[in-house]
């Protein structure tokens, strides 16, 4: 069980929260979280990718597996993670139209240079943009 001390300490430590601030208000229509606030690849990772791939990039296994990104040979060619982030794969949703190509490039570059990955060739937003499949919209 957590104590009030712990959670207060965290509140002080949290530097970026996806609270709305000056962002437009959606109020239940879509997302209260505004992805435009995520300025770096690390911020995109920590507020989105980390939800499933975990803070250490190691994923997890239950009835199925959330793939690890740590020390991941699948990241050798930057185009692969870029197309997965843009268009989704299996349970993972698409982020085309949610994150900008620049944000996708930033987060792919971040993951490819952290968590035991050492791929230094940087992906550009232009390349990411070229990987976008048709823009998808939820059907209700």
């Amino acid at each position, binding site marked *: *069980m957590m104590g009030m001390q712990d959670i207060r300490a965290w509140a002080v430590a949290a530097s970026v929260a996806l609270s709305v601030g000056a962002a437009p208000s*959606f109020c239940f229509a879509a997302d209260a979280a505004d992805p435009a606030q995520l300025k770096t690849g690390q911020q995109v990772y920590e507020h989105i990718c980390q939800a*499933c791939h975990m803070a250490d990039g190691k994923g997890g296994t*239950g*009835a*199925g597996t959330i793939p690890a990104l740590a020390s991941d040979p699948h990241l050798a060619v930057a185009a692969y993670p870029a197309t997965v982030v843009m268009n989704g794969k*299996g349970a993972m949703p698409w982020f085309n139209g949610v994150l900008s190509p620049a944000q996708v490039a930033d987060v792919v570059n971040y993951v490819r240079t952290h968590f035991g990955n050492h791929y230094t060739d940087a992906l550009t937003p232009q390349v990411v943009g070229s990987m976008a499949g048709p823009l998808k919209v939820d059907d209700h």
Partner: protein
Amino acid sequence: MPANASGPTRRDLLLRIGLTAGTAAMYQAMTALGHAEESQFRGTPELGRARRGDSVVVLGAGLAGLAAAYELDKAGYRVQLLEYQDRAGGRNWTLRGGDTYTELGGATQKVGFAAGNYFNPGPWRIPHHHRAILHYCKQFGVQLEPFIQFNNNAYVHSTNAFGGRPQRYRDGASDFIGNISELLGKSVNQNNLDQVLTKEDRERLLVALREWGMLDASYSYRKGLHVSTRRGYERPPGGGPDGAPIASDLLPFSDVLDPCVWNTMKFFMTYEMQPTMFQPVGGMDMIGKAFARHVGRLITFNRKVTAIAQDDSGVTVSHADRVSGAAGQTRADWCVCAMPLTVLAQIPVQVSPKMQAGIRAVPYSSHAKIGMEFRRRFWEEDEAIYGGISFTSQEIALISYPNDRMHSSGPAVLLGGFPLNLAGLDFAAMTPEQRLETALKQGEVIHPQYRREFMNGTSVAWSRVPWMLGCRARWSEADRKAYYQDLVALDGRIVLAGDHASYLGGWQEGALLSSMDAVKRLHKRAQEA
């Protein structure tokens, strides 16, 4: 009723049918006459008898799997149901004091709620037109009570309007309707609509706007006792010398135009969200438990399915025992696979390439829920909010107040947040402690009592639920067109079931309608085989 020269009215006819053939027949007749088409439910499948010895393996003991097992067992099939967890129900799930929940990543929460308090991390409300689940609730004696969806006295809150202060729904909605009515009235009176409306309809519209919008004789929406009969008072009516009411101030129209007002109004108008709604007394899992009372003997728990194969004579399901690690196989003539696509997409399934593509095409959403226990019902005691939902532009999206045991003393649990989509991912990325702190921080903007009264809380971020890896299937229009029919097709001896195989994603009704349709088609093919 006047003597009817043109034969019986529809009402007469329906009453006669109802009296002679019972309500089920009347419902069917109503449907045929174009009324009451609020559900595709047409009663549970009348499968008749299975051929002697025919067997079915059902995968996944969520509502779709449980209902399939129940109906097929009733028809005489030999049914085996394999489940990954050590409990039945799937997302039909309730957490209570003493329960322990470990999410992917390893964080474990021990639920600290007082006896009798609970939190539904998954489904939490049942619309009145979800007739399949209502049917099973009635059949199994699951006691229902009203889920108070709509409450005029709950709040709308936006960080960007009203100085960030929450407003009662009724104030925002009244002022929205009043101002819009005034503006439209002006438009009519300035002859702007002469081209699109007849003179008679313009006059009728003006009357409607004046009455519906609470406008005065000059078609203005103004502060006054008349308007206060809708939006409430500065000083409400009382008795004695000071009994006279005082009208309340209107909200600034610029703030009233904030999406938090009209989006909340829109939400309550959504077909799936309209009252009357229900919840099972004591927790949503009463439904899963009721199914389990009937089919629990058929369930093997702690089985992780690793492959599904089929040949001309049957289906072979390979699995691993989560406790001993031992590999095993289950063979049956047929298979109803009610596993989530998140998991199914990761194992070999011997179905057509088209169906496999569908299984792998559909991603899942990432919603999260936070149950929070407080020392007292301050929302009732201090703010006269009895059930219902307050909406906010913040990530928590809403606060939903308990619908049961109103006016009781002692600790109570409310739903302290339902972060959706990206907000759901953001919450999932947090530790359980961080989620609670965020929910407190955002919730206290609406209820200043939060910190003082908070006791404990539990969060479930669905993308980290080990047996789901997501909340609900997200169908895009393009994917629906490309994959849906192949996904729901009966493929040899295997058929999928679940809310993902329906047009009611994320609803228990979708799981049940899908399941009933699947077993009907499976049974038909089994009879023909």
